């Protein structure tokens, strides 16, 4: 299998008044074609920043410090004033125009809050025209609207509602419109940042179903960012667990749930309620994550970890591949470390 997306050594920093916060710290990730990679973690772990870095849209005062974002482009893109060659490209090396040609066309992004992600003064149809004409300049407005109507129909929205304004739609329908805009140009990679968190559970289930269908229909690969492990269990092929800007564990979905390796993953799974197992006792992790502006040396989970050892306070543990296939950043699995 080829990698559609390969992130190497990515770091993102936010310059705040109190100091510099490393929101994404030395991250390596791979996403294979036609797979869904789940990116999970709690608030402030850097998962959204990571998603936005791939689009190179980290908001001010954030900045990508170093790293490569390698993307496998399936066709050369030619646009007014430039072009991008097909093949494996490093998104970090593209200029603003090249990046813009890729955004929306090859990489699509869906934001958390459908209520605020559409321009309230622009009709749904014009949202479609805009994105289509931004990438295919010779498409006429009528044709763009027709394509928009087809997409709405696929998503179960009456095509005549294309002339409506966003406020005339319910939350679930707006998120469907967002998804529709996302897939309008048949992108290769869909990044969905908490796409269902703002929605009610029934609509959430409907949208997750629709995303799965679309993924098959359009051969999409997906990066699904969420704090909800239940959502990932149903949709992801692989899951990466993040904590304080670092990837703690990457594993196949089944093995992550059956045999979590990192102590943080283990604790997290014990804390997740399961509606099918009402008698499960929920655990919690005492304490809170360390301040990113004032990071601690070594493993950031150490103060909350019951297996913490001396070595954990020295260097951050590297992400290493185990014989069982998982990748874990924890000294418990490093050979030659005495487990005291």
């Amino acid at each position, binding site marked *: 299998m080829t990698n559609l997306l390969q992130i190497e050594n990515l770091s993102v920093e936010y310059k705040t008044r109190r100091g510099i916060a490393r929101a994404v710290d030395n991250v390596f990730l791979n996403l294979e074609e036609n797979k869904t990679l789940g990116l999970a973690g709690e608030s402030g772990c850097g998962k959204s920043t990571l998603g936005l870095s791939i689009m190179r849209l980290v908001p001010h005062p954030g900045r990508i410090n170093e790293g490569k974002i390698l993307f496998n482009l399936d066709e050369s893109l030619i646009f007014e004033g430039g072009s991008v060659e097909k093949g494996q490209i490093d998104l970090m090396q593209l200029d603003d125009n090249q990046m813009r040609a890729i955004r929306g066309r090859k990489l699509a992004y869906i934001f958390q809050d459908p209520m605020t992600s559409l321009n309230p003064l622009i009709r749904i149809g014009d949202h479609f025209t805009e994105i289509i004409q931004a990438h295919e300049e010779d498409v006429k407005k009528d044709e763009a609207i027709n394509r928009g109507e087809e997409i709405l129909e696929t998503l179960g929205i009456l095509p005549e509602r294309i002339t409506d*304004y966003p406020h005339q739609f319910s939350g679930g329908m707006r998120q469907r419109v967002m998804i529709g805009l996302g897939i309008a140009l048949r992108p290769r990679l869909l990044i969905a940042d908490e796409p269902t968190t703002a929605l009610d559970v029934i609509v959430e289930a409907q949208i997750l179903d629709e995303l799965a269908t679309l993924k098959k229909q359009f051969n999409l690969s997906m990066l699904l960012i969420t704090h909800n492990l239940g959502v990932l269990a149903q949709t992801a092929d692989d899951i990466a667990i993040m904590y304080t800007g670092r990837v703690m564990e990457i594993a196949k979905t089944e093995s992550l749930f059956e045999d979590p390796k990192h102590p943080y993953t283990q604790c997290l799974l014990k804390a997740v309620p399961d509606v099918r197992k009402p008698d499960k006792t929920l655990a919690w992790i005492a304490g809170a994550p360390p301040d990113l502006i004032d990071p601690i040396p070594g493993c950031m989970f150490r103060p909350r970890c019951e297996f913490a050892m001396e070595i954990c306070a020295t260097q951050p543990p590297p992400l290493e591949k185990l014989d069982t296939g998982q990748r874990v950043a924890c000294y418990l699995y490093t050979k030659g470390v005495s487990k005291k």
Partner: protein
Amino acid sequence: MSLKSYVTSRVLLTIPMVFLLLTLVFVIIRVMPGDPALLHFERHVSPEVLAEFRRRLGLDLPIWQQYINYIAGLFRGDFGISMQDYSPIIQHLHARFPATLELSIYSGLFAVVFGVILGVISARKYDTTTDHSIRLLAIVTYAIPVFFLGMIFQIIFSVWLRILPSGLRFDPHYTPPPTITGLYTIDSLLTGNIWAFGISIRYLLLPSVTLGIILLGIFIRLTRTNMLETQQSDFVMSAKARGLSSFSITYRYSLKNAFLPILTMIGIQVAILLAGAVLTETTFSWPGLGTYLVDRIYHRDYTAIQGTVVFFAIMVAVVTLAVDILYAYFDPRIRL
């Protein structure tokens, strides 16, 4: 609610508001200390002259009768008569209004156009030297008094450089263009008189720039804040993620969405514009409503003051109404 029913209800709501304004003006003029008739003459006159004076102005009637006459008169377009020469005030308003309108239009345009442009630049260059300089300019222009700025301009451009006239509306050696709209710039163009157009622009320049600069600061700050706000909004983020060009994001998203609060501000600024016009006109001897009002105040011409203030009040009410309707037209969320 449809746009039509919104407009109807908004118009209906304006009626009591204007009514209240009219009453307020009436009351304020009456509660001012002293007898208007006595104050007007300043020196002793015979009781017969005074009685005749009061009778012609209707000041001998009971207050409620005066009020009814006043309101009824306004409905007929009658703003009362002047204490000076018993001439109908509406004649003066009619003669002077075009000058004020012309000054207001050009200074308003100046403020909005340059305010929005500078605001957009400031927001796009957020937190740079350009941004800081523009913000400083906005604060300074907002704080500076109109007559002071006007005098500085007169000294620079009329006294030192001698390139622009220091006052009046038209060169006294020439005849102004014939009245069609009353706005010299428009009338001169309509009659094809480029020469007269040039003169009127020369005379307009200093007063309208002065008044425009005073209003500029508010529009710069408003544009800048709203642009920044929309730029950080989720829908601009998602527009960027769809690969829209930064031009279309700036103009179709940020500016379009920032335009609504600017529109509201234009409505609010009309009152300040008119107040500023009074001072600017005085500074530049501009023959508009402002100089008329000041002149009438000097002469303690209470009926004329009342008529002019009422006229100003109605103007503000009408413009506010127009702005509200435009807002509803541009914002789909109001037309539910």
